[in-house]
């Protein structure tokens, strides 16, 4: 009898930590969302506003990571779609309605249309040409925002955007606004996460790893790249609509090269290809820029530059490349 009893735990032992290890990310994800949801109950309104900005920027960074990290398309002009979504959502809030899903949907649609119009040419290129083309598109869109004063307010930006309204109630309270932004941010993140884990997402990673091989396997890679470019533009547009909901103002700086490069920085800090890493990177960028930057007499970008250099040297795979030391070194998951 004792022999039988001792055999059972031995046979079950390896399964237990595995199940725990597989369940752990899920538990952590739920815990993070719960903590984030509860945050405004404990934080001062100013901190809540910073957190709101982090969530907005995180969704934008995640949409960029879909291009850079998952598909291997390093865009320098992704803020164009972020800004286009922000302007469109702001314009519709002023001139039509600020009722909840409308600015959001308009932002998503504008980001998608802008990406669809520009993407068909960019996805035909690769490497440095892709970088330069997306940079050029970003600059062009910023010029457009600067000069088309009737729609965008020119260099002053689009001002006087009303608060987002949910079921007729304007979301003036920083906490309510935060919850609105967080809810959309979590849904947007989940959407990108599902896409990345799908069979289609596997094809995108194949394109990142070896595009000629994917073509030889019968994948029309240009179609895939175009579709993901439009999807990323659409998610960036949603993030843009959240931006305008938070700051109630859009300026040409929001679709500048600097904004694009900050998003790229967030992706690199987090570890390209890791979606939660991009969120973490976005938090670092926003905190350094806005919180630390204010106390450093506006030298936030300098600190960001140092962070970037340190990350590249110390964590070549970003925060997502960090691994806890484990006993069984054979496993890499």
């Amino acid at each position, binding site marked *: 009898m004792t022999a039988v009893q001792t055999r059972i735990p031995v046979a079950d032992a390896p399964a237990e930590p595995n199940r725990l290890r597989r369940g752990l990310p899920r538990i952590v994800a739920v815990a993070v969302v719960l903590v984030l949801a509860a945050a405004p109950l404990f934080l001062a309104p100013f901190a809540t506003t910073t957190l709101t900005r982090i969530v907005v920027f995180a969704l934008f960074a995640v949409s960029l990571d879909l291009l850079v990290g998952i598909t291997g398309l390093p865009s320098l002009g992704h803020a164009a779609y972020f800004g286009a979504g922000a302007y469109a959502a702001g314009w519709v809030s002023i001139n039509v309605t600020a009722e909840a899903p409308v600015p959001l949907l308009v932002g998503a649609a504008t980001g998608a249309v802008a990406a669809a119009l520009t993407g068909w040419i960019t996805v035909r290129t690769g490497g440095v040409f892709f970088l330069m083309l997306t940079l050029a598109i970003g600059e062009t869109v910023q010029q457009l925002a600067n000069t088309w004063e009737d729609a965008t307010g020119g260099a002053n930006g689009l001002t006087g955007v009303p608060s987002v309204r949910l079921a007729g109630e304007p979301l003036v309270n920083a906490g309510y606004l935060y919850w609105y932004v967080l809810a959309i941010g979590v849904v947007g993140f989940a959407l990108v996460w599902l896409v990345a884990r*799908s069979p289609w997402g596997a094809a995108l990673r*194949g394109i990142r*790893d070896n595009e000629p091989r994917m073509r*030889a396997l019968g994948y029309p*890679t240009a179609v895939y790249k175009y579709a993901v470019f439009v999807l990323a533009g659409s998610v960036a547009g949603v993030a843009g609509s959240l931006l305008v909901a938070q700051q109630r103002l859009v300026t040409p700086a929001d679709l500048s090269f600097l904004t694009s490069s900050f998003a790229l920085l967030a992706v690199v800090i987090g570890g390209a290809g890791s979606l939660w890493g991009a969120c973490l990177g976005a938090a670092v960028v926003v905190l350094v820029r806005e919180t630390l930057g204010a106390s450093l007499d506006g030298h936030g970008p300098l600190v960001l530059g140092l962070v970037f250099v340190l990350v590249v040297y110390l964590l070549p795979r970003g925060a997502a490349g960090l691994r806890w030391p484990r006993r069984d070194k054979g496993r890499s998951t």
Partner: protein
Amino acid sequence: MALRSTGLRRSFGALAAVDGVDLAVAPGARHALIGPNGAGKSTLFKLVTGTMRADAGTVELGDRDVTGLSEVARCRLGMSQTMQHASLFGSMTATETVALAVQRHDGSRITPWPRRQRAVRERAEELLAGVGLAGRGSTPVPSLSHGERKQLEVAVALACKPSLLLLDEPAAGMSAAERARLVEVLAELPADITLLIVEHDLDLVFSVADAVTVLHLGRVLLSGTPDEVRASEDVREAYLGAKRREELFLG
């Protein structure tokens, strides 16, 4: 014919790498394409697969003219290839790599949302076992040996359900043991798959092929059975670069 090229031509500047090649590969054949360095083998291979556009000439797959079709479309019509440099997908495991090819060709929908692909995975593991990589499925591709990666290339190419399988120097860089294993894998391939092998290693060619085309300076020097090729003086000249055998050993 499983594959026929007519008057295929491709130049790089003044160099005619492929200079009017007529090639006919019979259905079910094990056809080898050999030739000394610079004969135009790799260029011809790329013209056939559609990776590179021909300046002139036609390529027919079965009874269909595929000259104007992209390599993606040719793959969908049953033309599959392995690549000389088996780089594959650096971030994936062997099974994931094969699954990527399987999901494209087994009629499963490539959805942008997650779904269980049990059939795809099982098929991928079956193909891995078929090329001698059973039990290596969860190994990341960069951790596979060079020879194993070549075997993986074959599994990936077979996942495309080809009627014509093109192998670009499948034995390049392989050890003797890996070569022997490759010959075994090729011998076990279903007879209805037509093979076209571009290869440097003549031992491998003569142990696998039932038809050989010799390319020299962009043109077909000879097409025939392995025995005819082995016996040919012209082929010997092309490879050894001497008019007569005696001239080589004058020293």
